[in-house]
């Protein structure tokens, strides 16, 4: 898949933002007044910036409101609803905490659950696609949710929670890569089933339909970026998990905490880039590509 910056920014930032909202809604940390304002501003900033970035790749962003209509079948539509519900509920909760010096606990819990639901629905947009075996796995929502919780705990300053969540996310990441590398072969789809000619012999793409490129190849076949995939995996893993864990274990300082957050953000963004760049869409088979 083409690793479009808009979707990488969207999933990385909104995952982190909704992760932070999850913890804030549970009163972790139990902040109020100006400190609460800063926490909520960061959370809303990340979540909304991510959602806005996701509209950049639309052909007609002015019609984006129509995406709220098909929640019965479409995960993209459900994501829109969850995001709006989470932001509105958490907005009301934020008002209670910042300005009224009260804690509407039930509202916070609802907002927390809606925030997690938003991350889950985002992940299901990718997970539902049978055409991309590397995404069509149960580990995909597990990865989105564990990343969001780990990043949220880091941002919320919940250092005792951040450590186990980071370790869980790291484990899910390793499992995702291991299973993902086998996903296309395990799907049973190859040029033989794509053309229906597989039972007759070995099928080879002889001539593409056009000498030039096209939308399908630009969108679904991204071979160049995969060249350094192994190195990028090491970088992503080190930045997202290893370095933040080391910084958390060291004696606490605000500088180390900031460094851990920035390192984690860069690592998750790299991992998300690989999530797209390494995903093979089966339509590539028709072109003799992956």
């Amino acid at each position, binding site marked *: *898949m083409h690793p479009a910056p808009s979707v990488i920014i969207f999933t990385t930032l909104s995952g982190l933002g909704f992760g932070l909202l999850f913890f804030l809604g549970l009163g972790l940390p139990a902040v109020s007044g100006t400190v609460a304002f800063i926490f909520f501003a960061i959370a809303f900033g990340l979540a909304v910036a991510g959602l806005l970035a996701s509209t950049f*790749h*639309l*052909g*007609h*962003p002015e*019609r*984006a409101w*129509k*995406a*709220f*209509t*098909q929640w*019965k*079948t*479409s*995960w*993209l*539509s459900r994501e*829109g609803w969850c995001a709006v519900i989470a932001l509105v509920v958490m907005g009301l909760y934020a008002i209670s905490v910042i300005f009224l010096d009260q804690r509407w606990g039930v509202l916070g819990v609802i907002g927390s659950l809606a925030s997690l639901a938003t991350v889950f629905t985002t992940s299901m*947009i990718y997970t*539902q*696609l*049978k*055409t*991309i075996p590397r995404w069509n796995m149960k580990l995909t929502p597990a990865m989105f949710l564990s990343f969001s919780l780990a990043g949220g705990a880091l941002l919320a300053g919940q250092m005792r929670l951040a450590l186990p969540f980071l370790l869980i996310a790291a484990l899910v990441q390793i499992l995702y890569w291991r299973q993902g590398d086998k996903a296309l072969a395990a*799907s*049973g*789809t190859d*040029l033989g*089933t*794509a*053309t*229906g*000619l597989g039972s*007759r*012999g*070995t*099928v*080879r*793409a*002889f*001539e*593409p*339909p*056009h000498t*030039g*490129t*096209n*939308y*399908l190849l630009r*969108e*679904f076949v991204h071979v160049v970026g995969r060249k350094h995939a192994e190195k990028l995996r090491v970088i992503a893993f080190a930045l997202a998990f290893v370095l933040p864990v080391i910084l958390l274990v060291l004696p606490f300082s605000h500088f180390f905490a900031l460094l851990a957050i920035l390192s984690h953000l860069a690592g998750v963004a790299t991992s998300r880039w690989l999530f797209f760049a390494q995903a093979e*869409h*089966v*339509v590539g088979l*028709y*072109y003799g590509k992956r």
Partner: protein
Amino acid sequence: MTQLPTSTDRKMGLVIDLDTCVGCHACVISCKGWNTENYGAPLSDQDAYGGNPSGTFLNRVHSYEVQPEQGAAQLIHFPKSCLHCEDAPCVTVCPTGASYKRAEDGIVLVNESDCIGCGLCAWSCPYGARELDQAEGVMKKCTLCVDRIYNENLPEVDRIPSCVRTCPAGARHFGDLGDPESDVSKLVAERGGMDLMPEMGTKPVNKYLPPRPKDKIEDQIDILAPLLAPVADEPKGFMGWLDKALEKL
């Protein structure tokens, strides 16, 4: 809207004969010609006369080589367009309801004024049948020439999809695949018509007829050849003398 109809009255679709297709790409051109000036936005091209041309097509012809374990390789031309799947994933993923499958004839269409160009339907299609038009920012796909097949302003012979009307080899057939008595259904039954990527569970309506096994090449290509009288005779008369004289020279 983006909920699929539980069943459709008819299953209109194409049957493509891989045995007869000669790979001339005439269907590609006639498709683009008809559809760029009829249903919905035109099918735009980018840098059409430059060094890196690219454009929107609803039908593309691939060519594959099949190498059996024994014998000669076979070249198979392979036209590919929307298969109007019964269980079309492109319809259910659409967030706006722009993508839909018609209950009356099973044709999968895009309502372009509702399309936000998110591209998710193209992501969900295993066949590469949908392309986002780069000029218009909306999703384009085969309409089964919905503006031809019911068009009473056209002569009856033209009320079939443009690609079928054009094919010089008769490799494309159009009809109701939901009716077991239709010509296309009989053709599929007789020739062992197949689905593409059946493991994807899309239940395509369009079927492909497998190529027939080609004749084996024997040592003697024509069994009648030894029985034929030789064409070249020994020259006689003046030509015979000339032949001998030149031979001696």
